[in-house]
């Protein structure tokens, strides 16, 4: 109950405004898309970037006349629910979505929430797009969850491999917050690193999310002198402090994470000490961003005052939902049709230059296509902005 969904509140307000505005000059039928995630508390930034990117996109669509699916033009309404990172609330949120007659929901942001909403989602015919990595969410018999991003067990190996090949990284150390998600991510990261033949020199150091001084936590890990330090599942709030402490302690190796980060936060929190920090992004770097991406960023910024680079990866889920519905109009209230169409779905990726495609993947990891194909763009932070390091794909 702490820090209730202030953020959610913000999101909802924005939704209402967006909705109100639409209702004012367009009388289109409304297509509701849900969001259940954490928009308050220490992890608020994750959910907020999610919610805002959805709202920015929805407002954009509505302003330009709506979204046409099967001959009907809809206005898009985003219905948001702050689960406060509490699985109990997440279930309530999913129930609320069912109540609203919503069949497509983005979120939740964390493992326990994503697992807790599964019974509700499956009972109420809701497809949901969590930002959580446990494989059992996406593997049969689970049917309704679609991984909304690239899992760390997919991006991790790609990053480690790249660094091994190009930077001569031989030893790696992991550090994670003492919470479910980061620990799970660390464990799968460690397994992946070992498989690649990297030497894992430290994998059991953890910190509490409320840590204010990371020096004592980092000291033992840095003593092992790894070539690469992986911050498993690091939250945007902790990342700058970890970077700063590590560099101040004289660490000169590479630092990476498999989650998305915000350049502004890094710049403020760690300044130049964040240079060289490797993280995962969407189509954020100038050479990759399509004009549509740039417009999106612009609209987002004017709507909420400030862009969040994490949104680069979070703009996709809504686009996937809409594009798939467009391709299979009957799926609008028939989830089975949606699922059936996932195998063959393909559409151009509007946010990236080049001929990238939107499609569902995940056969290798889950045995069924329950993941959206987002280009795995690995970024390096440099002086306040991200630069592309390399791009990879997931199957």
């Amino acid at each position, binding site marked *: 109950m702490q*820090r209730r969904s*202030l953020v959610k509140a913000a999101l909802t307000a924005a939704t209402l405004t967006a909705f109100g505005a639409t209702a004012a000059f367009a009388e289109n039928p409304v297509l509701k898309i849900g969001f259940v995630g954490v928009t308050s508390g*220490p992890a608020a*930034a994750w959910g907020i970037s999610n919610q805002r990117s959805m709202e920015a996109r929805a407002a954009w669509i509505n302003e330009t006349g709506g979204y046409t699916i099967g001959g009907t033009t809809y206005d898009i309404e985003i219905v948001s629910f702050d689960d406060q990172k509490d699985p109990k609330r997440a279930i309530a949120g999913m129930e609320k979505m069912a109540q609203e007659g919503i069949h497509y929901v983005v979120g939740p942001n964390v493992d326990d929430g994503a697992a807790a909403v599964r019974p509700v989602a499956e009972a109420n015919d809701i497809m949901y797009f969590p930002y959580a990595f446990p494989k059992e969410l996406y593997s049969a018999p689970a049917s309704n969850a679609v991984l909304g991003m690239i899992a760390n067990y997919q991006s991790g190996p790609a990053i480690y491999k790249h660094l091994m090949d190009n930077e001569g990284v031989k030893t790696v150390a992991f550090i994670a917050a*003492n919470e479910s998600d980061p620990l799970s991510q660390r464990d799968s990261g460690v397994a992946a690193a070992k498989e690649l033949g990297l030497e894992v020199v430290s994998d*059991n150091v*953890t910190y*509490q999310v409320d840590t204010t001084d990371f020096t*004592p936590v980092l000291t033992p890990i840095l003593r092992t002198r790894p070539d690469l330090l992986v911050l498993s599942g690091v939250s945007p*709030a902790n990342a700058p402090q970890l970077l700063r402490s590590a560099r101040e302690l004289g660490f000169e190796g590479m630092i990476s994470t498999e989650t998305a980060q915000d350049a502004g936060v890094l710049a403020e929190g760690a300044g130049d000490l964040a240079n060289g920090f490797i993280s995962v992004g969407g189509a954020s770097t100038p050479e990759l961003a399509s004009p549509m991406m740039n417009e999106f960023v612009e609209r987002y910024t004017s709507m909420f005052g400030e862009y969040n680079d994490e949104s680069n990866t979070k703009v996709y889920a809504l686009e996937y939902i809409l594009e798939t519905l467009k391709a299979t109009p009957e799926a609008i209230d028939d989830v089975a049709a949606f699922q059936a169409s996932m195998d063959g779905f393909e559409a151009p990726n509007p946010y990236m230059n080049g001929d990238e495609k939107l499609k569902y993947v995940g056969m290798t990891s889950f045995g069924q296509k329950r993941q959206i194909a987002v280009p795995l763009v690995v970024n390096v932070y440099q002086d306040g902005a991200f630069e592309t390091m390399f791009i990879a794909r997931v199957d």
Partner: protein
Amino acid sequence: MANGVYLGSQYAMIALGLTLIFALMNVLNFAHGQMYVIGGFVTYTFYGQWGVPFVLALFMSCITLAIVGALIERYLFAPVIKGSAREESTMLLAAGIAFLLDALILLIFGEKQRGVPKIVDGVFNWDFRLIMPYDRILICVLAILSIVAFIALMQYSKTGRALRALAQDRTAAQLMGVNVDRYSMIGFALGAMLAGLVGGLLVTITGVNLGMGGPTSIKAFMMVMIGGAGVISGAIWGGFILGFMEAFGLAYLSQYGDITYLLIFVSLMIFLAIRPQGLMGKPWG
């Protein structure tokens, strides 16, 4: 070692504010962490955003929090304490205030992690045996100075004496002619101000975000418990002990990996069970 001193000094300041409020009014201020966060955001806004000199920004944090604290005491805590059958009811009020401040923080300052430029660059490195960035040293010194100033205030000023009398025995203080209502308010404002001051100091190192409030409150509670509730020396001891525990404990216990914190918390529980009054406190109940 140096890290212990650094962590300890900031923890001690947080704990001091909390323990002061507790001693004066028997209120466990759940909103203490939120006050700390506000302090951080105010300094961030003045120093980081508007380029006001750091010291002035810090001063603004103190003033803001002192005013907030005074208002909260005057219009919320004081009447509730008078009207409630069991004084623990103030815990609900404190929690309500924590929610309210959280809501305000989100609306005013947003959800992102915020940080300000370093006030001093560079790292003090003594042969790799002692590594300490200069800004930490500076903050640590400032924190210790503040603590010393606070103690001096409590010991030697008229206000300090009145507050101490009040903390010891409300009724007796009243009989001695201390204006209880007024000094409760001053005390609360002072406690809140300390929270704001630490928030302002630390924003230069750890940054600030709206999620820090709750965990900070809980940490502060633990420090106060270790040292002994409502005792100033206890808060300082508690702060330093927790600071050292984190600084050393993590270094030595890190080999146990994931259960490091479990060990720390369990030992804390055992300590409290054996010595419930903390190090310096009197049994209370």
